[in-house]
């Protein structure tokens, strides 16, 4: 095993260890905190496909996170109110169905946003993705049927066949297993032919075109896959909080996901895991001490960008190797 693999394994096990240690010492609150870490990590794994592998700095991934959240909220609301959708389609409280709907909806929206924004690059790409996400944010605020500005609460957490999702540790395990699946997807994508083309598009777009692969299609596919993974995390996030609000769609959320990735290590397999652990602990501990915890997070981020470009994973495992 090389250092990169060891680091990834250690970080993933650390995340599993947090709720176990918490329960052993009676700090049950930390189980929920660990679920939050796993969910944010999964959302960032999604973004890491577009940003880390493809160099697509999407400042609008909150849109997909929020779409996932609203998929959970809206489907559950219809199920609980016994109000079918148009065409008589019923709502549902079943997580697997919700996840599928969340990913499909985000995939369709991402295909549309991507088809327009991927024609641009650099700052323009950042701004267009931001603009689309803000449009969806304001739509959610002004659309009264699902709570508008107040959001939508899920009075009882959605169900997964055969397990009790109300138990915090069971819910953590669901999030954790989906995170593992997301990491495995990232790992296979990165090393595949598609991943090679995607990373080449980031390193040298001209070169990719000059071997006969159009960068646009590769990036668009990556953007859609990326959005679907982030939407899955969004659905879990709504279930964690039993609440979805437009804030899930806001640019703060997009920024948080980017910060997570930079903290953890851009383009690195376990970067989002490291980033989520650091971020949530910071938020919890420093947030308990001072309301201005984000100032200190900013300082840490500055340090990472200036002195440790590879983030936490870069510090632990050294420079990325591409074979």
């Amino acid at each position, binding site marked *: 095993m090389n250092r990169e693999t060891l680091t990834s394994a250690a970080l993933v096990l650390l995340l599993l260890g947090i709720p176990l240690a918490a329960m052993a010492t009676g700090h049950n609150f930390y189980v929920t905190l660990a679920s939050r870490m796993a969910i944010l990590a999964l959302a960032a794994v999604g973004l890491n496909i577009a940003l880390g592998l493809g160099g697509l700095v999407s400042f609008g991934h909150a849109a997909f996170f929020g779409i996932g959240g609203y998929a959970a909220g809206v489907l559950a609301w219809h199920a609980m109110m016994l109000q079918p959708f148009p065409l008589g389609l019923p709502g549902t409280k079943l997580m697997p169905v919700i996840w599928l709907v969340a990913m499909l909806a985000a995939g369709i929206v991402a295909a549309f946003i991507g088809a327009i924004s991927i024609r641009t690059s650099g700052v323009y790409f950042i701004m267009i993705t931001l603009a689309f996400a803000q449009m969806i944010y304001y739509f959610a605020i002004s659309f009264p049927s699902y709570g508008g500005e107040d959001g939508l609460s899920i009075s009882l957490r959605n169900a997964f066949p055969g397990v009790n999702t109300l138990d915090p540790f069971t819910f953590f395990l669901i999030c954790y297993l989906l995170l593992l699946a997301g990491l495995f997807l990232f790992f296979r994508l990165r090393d595949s032919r598609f*991943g*090679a083309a995607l990373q080449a598009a980031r390193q040298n777009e001209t*070169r*990719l075109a000059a071997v*006969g692969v159009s960068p646009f299609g590769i990036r668009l596919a990556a953007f859609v896959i990326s959005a679907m993974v982030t939407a899955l995390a969004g659905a879990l996030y709504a279930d964690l909080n039993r609440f979805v609000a437009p804030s899930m769609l806001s640019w703060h959320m997009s920024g948080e996901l980017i910060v997570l990735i930079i903290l953890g290590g851009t383009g690195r397999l376990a970067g989002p895991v490291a980033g989520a652990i650091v971020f949530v602990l910071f938020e919890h501990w420093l947030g308990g001490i001072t309301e201005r915890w984000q100032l200190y997070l900013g300082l840490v981020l500055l340090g990472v960008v200036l002195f440790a470009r590879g983030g936490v994973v870069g510090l632990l495992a050294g420079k990325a190797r591409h*074979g």
Partner: protein
Amino acid sequence: MAEPVLELRDMSKAFGALKATDGVSLDLKPGEIHALIGPNGAGKTTLIHQIAGSIRPDAGTIFFLGQDIGHLGVAGRVRLGLGRTFQISSIAPEFSALRNVMLAVQSQQGTSYRFWKPVLSDNSLVDPAMAMLERAGLAERARVPAAELSHGDKRRLEIAIALALEPKAFLLDEPMAGMDPEGSKGLTRFLDELRAEAPILLVEHDMDAVFALADRVSVLVYGRMIASGTVSEIRADANVRRAYLGDES
């Protein structure tokens, strides 16, 4: 007379008042090396860009294998069989030399939308890529990140990538640029044999190489083609001597 593989008719391109390409027509026949020479700023690279599809001409048509390719983008022209190298090496810097060539192999196979199988253990990519690196004399540097290759090795990597595409015609933009004399000689021998596989449109400043290799030479000055013919015709051409080679040569 064999049908030309590549044919340009009346290509023109202006940047503002500057006519970078001014009514240029030329063709490339099977098995030949057609050299394109001219002083700096004559519009050679601009012309290559138009053939490759990265710059749109204002007027004129390009036929490749008997087909008008004016509407195709860069990637589409490469897929048809137009392989190019760049004047300034253009590679994926983080990837090893091997992975740079593997990228060309997967594109040539049309398999860039496979999402699951790892490439590094895939012999259908690694083996052909290694073979190309060997032909270009770069096999020992296969695992070195492309950014860390020497200038000459980057030039060889460009050639290996172009070879892996198995093109029907090569566009080589100053392949010898910045190479030491030894490297230039080796590359000259290499290109000499390469023309049997596919004809080469060669932009080159190294006159020794041009005169040793070219079946035909075209001379571009201020975007205009002032002469075109065999090496001895070009050497004897008074216009060319005045405009380019210098009176005393």
